[in-house]
């Protein structure tokens, strides 16, 4: 046991000190932060493209002040203007476009023109249309002379927003969001795939290095081959976890710093800043009316997502993630170690890599499909079969999986990973001492049956 820890230490320290490790550890969070920050910055820049639009009515003044200013555009109502003359010079006066409303608008929908040099964005058109429609409806309603019209209008104003709720095993209702579940499924599925694959193949490269440099013979005259193999596998797993933790911490750090320096001035942080108070009050009954006045639609959506994220079965997710990472990684890493032991150099690994890569790729593909339909038979079976279950089950869990399925999947996983480690150790033991011969599947099958 003591010797294994010496091996683990060496595998860990030599890797963590490598330049490539340090660079990857520092660079990846910057990239991640960029992925988070850049879209926001782009959005900000879009807003900087502020449009001034002149509103002119032909022969009437029914719609003065009807179209409200938005973040993207300001509407300036002009009176006593010669339309034809203004059409030619609006650009020089700093306007993006001219909106000309004809009196027939009440009865004819297209009696309105927006003249501009560029194609106006769809959001702008929708805003104009919605404002005018509402106003015209109101005017038409007013023509029926109903008393208390304003009060009636206010009381019939409605807003619909489907709240997805999930019944758990105990019959409790939980607020969820399909969006969050999908995001989590995606993140965990992909993360599992990356960790297993990247660090699994590092194990393989390490084994090949020891074999080609002939260090292995000296080492296994001191320790058992299985000790060397497990020491390497565990050491690299720790490297993986270290890198992963560093990424999480650094990404969070970099994102926070960038947010506060780049975005603070622009006021985009207002949503997140007002979050905490809102979160605190979420347990108290807040009247629809009140919350509507306080919270903008974006904030409502954000709160809902946050709520849903909190309602995810986090304990189960974290436990399963650790479980599937350890067993899945051990399973694949030991197979990779066996492959590494059977070849003389990395180019020879191709023929053995393919059958190992296929289940991982299938797992990833099914996991991506899982997000569309977590209950599909393919997703169900792949989340039980041990070669794909670490990836697929992790993608399914955020959508809710019955405990018996998780139980069976984990049981199968444990049995299989023990079997694979045992088999890999037998191949490894023989393979690391074989040189110069091109290994075939048949050869490896023979090694499996050699006695100690």
């Amino acid at each position, binding site marked *: 046991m*003591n*010797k294994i820890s*010496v*091996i683990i230490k*060496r595998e860990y320290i*030599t890797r963590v000190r490598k330049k490539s490790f340090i660079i990857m550890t520092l660079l990846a969070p910057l990239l991640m932060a960029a992925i988070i920050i850049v879209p926001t910055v782009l959005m900000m820049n879009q807003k900087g493209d502020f449009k001034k639009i002149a509103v002119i009515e032909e022969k009437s003044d029914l719609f003065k002040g009807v179209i409200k200013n938005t973040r993207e555009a300001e509407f300036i109502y002009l009176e006593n203007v010669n339309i034809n003359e203004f059409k030619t010079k609006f650009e020089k006066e700093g306007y993006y476009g001219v909106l000309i409303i004809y009196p027939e608008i009440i009865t004819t929908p297209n009696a309105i023109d927006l003249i501009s040099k560029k194609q106006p964005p769809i959001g702008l058109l929708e805003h104009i249309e919605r404002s005018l429609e509402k106003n015209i409806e109101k005017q038409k309603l007013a023509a029926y002379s109903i008393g208390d019209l304003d009060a009636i209008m206010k009381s019939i104003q409605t807003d619909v927003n489907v709240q997805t709720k999930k019944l758990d095993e105990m019959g409790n209702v939980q607020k969820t969001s399909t969006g969050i579940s999908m995001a989590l499924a995606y993140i965990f599925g992909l993360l599992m795939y990356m960790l297993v694959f990247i660090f699994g193949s590092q194990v393989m490269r390490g084994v090949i*290095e*020891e074999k080609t*440099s*002939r*260090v*292995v*013979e*000296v*080492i*296994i*005259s*001191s*320790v*058992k081959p299985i000790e060397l193999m497990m020491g390497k596998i565990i050491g690299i797993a720790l490297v993986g976890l270290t890198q992963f933790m560093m990424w999480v911490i650094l990404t969070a750090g970099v994102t926070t710093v960038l947010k506060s320096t780049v975005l603070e001035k622009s006021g985009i942080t207002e949503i997140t800043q007002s979050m905490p108070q809102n979160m605190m009050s979420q347990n108290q009954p807040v009247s629809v009316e009140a919350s509507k006045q306080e919270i903008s639609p974006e904030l409502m959506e954000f709160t809902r997502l946050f709520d849903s994220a909190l309602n995810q079965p986090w304990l189960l997710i974290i436990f399963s993630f650790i479980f599937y990472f350890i067993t899945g990684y051990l399973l694949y890493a030991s197979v990779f170690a066996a492959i590494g032991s059977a070849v003389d150099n990395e180019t020879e690994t191709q023929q053995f890599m393919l059958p190992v890569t296929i289940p991982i790729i299938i797992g990833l593909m099914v996991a991506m499909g899982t997000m569309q339909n977590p209950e599909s038979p393919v997703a169900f079976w792949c989340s039980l079969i041990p070669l794909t279950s670490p990836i697929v089950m992790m993608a399914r869990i955020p959508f809710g999986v019955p405990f018996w399925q998780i139980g069976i999947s984990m049981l199968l996983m444990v049995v299989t990973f023990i079997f694979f480690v045992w088999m890999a150790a037998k191949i490894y033991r023989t393979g690391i*001492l074989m040189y110069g011969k091109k290994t075939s599947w048949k050869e490896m099958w*023979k090694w499996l049956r*050699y*006695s*100690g």
Partner: protein
Amino acid sequence: MSIFEAKNVSKQYGTQLALDNVSIAVPHQSIYGLLGPNGAGKTTLIRIINQITGPDSGELFLEGKKLRPEDVQRIGYLPEERGLYKKMKVGEQALYFAQLKGLSKAEAMKRLKYWFKKLEIIDWWGKKVEELSKGMAQKVQFVTTVLHEPKLLIFDEPFTGFDPVNANLIKNEILFLRERGATIIFSTHNMESVEELCDNITLINKAKTILEGSVDEIRSKWAANEYDLVFDGNVKIEGNGHYNILDHKFENNKSIIRLKTTGAVNSNELLQTAIKSGTVISFNPALPSMNEIFIRVVEARN
């Protein structure tokens, strides 16, 4: 008493027989040569002694007790194919191997400093292995092999890759280690070093033992009544009923004659006859070199 014994060891890889009922007994504080052509089974036997692989049948004993997995701490092994981590620093690497052999870090450090100074490689402590010459790396590996002061040392071709000066340095270290109580199993193709160093040998060919015993005995046995007789000046002698002349050379004003006695003549009688022919400078029984014996034995079997 034997410090190490292998009794009737056999090992098969698939259909290939690597060792067929091989036995060796290594006396305490001796140097034991393990000889044989390439692919004879030497490496397999060495790996079995190191418990890298197990035998199919047969038993192994260290100091009279059955060999156990923990005994790796009492064995030092220098494989023929030298291997070090290329990207790792020399000192760290030596420490790593020492710890794998069960030494504490502090103790390993102390002993490493001693050996690195002794072999004049202390300046290389912080260098990476890939920056070292082949001989340097060999020295480092030699140190890692002997550092834990094992009772039994196994050297597989220890002198390859060394220049004559360093080869001699290593040879003296091996002799020094024996003096301090270690026993050495020594596998090589270099027959001169066998004559020089080994007390006993076993010659393995095609998985079987074909020759074993002490080096002196084997050489005398194969000597077969041959003598080298050297005279001052040009001396000619004829063969008679007691001996035959095998070879006659005249070099540097000396006559070197190899003769073979026909049986019932002892060396004194032979010398007495020789004195009459001229001035004798030297008279030696002509022992065949281990090289000759090796070739003759192996070729006879093939």
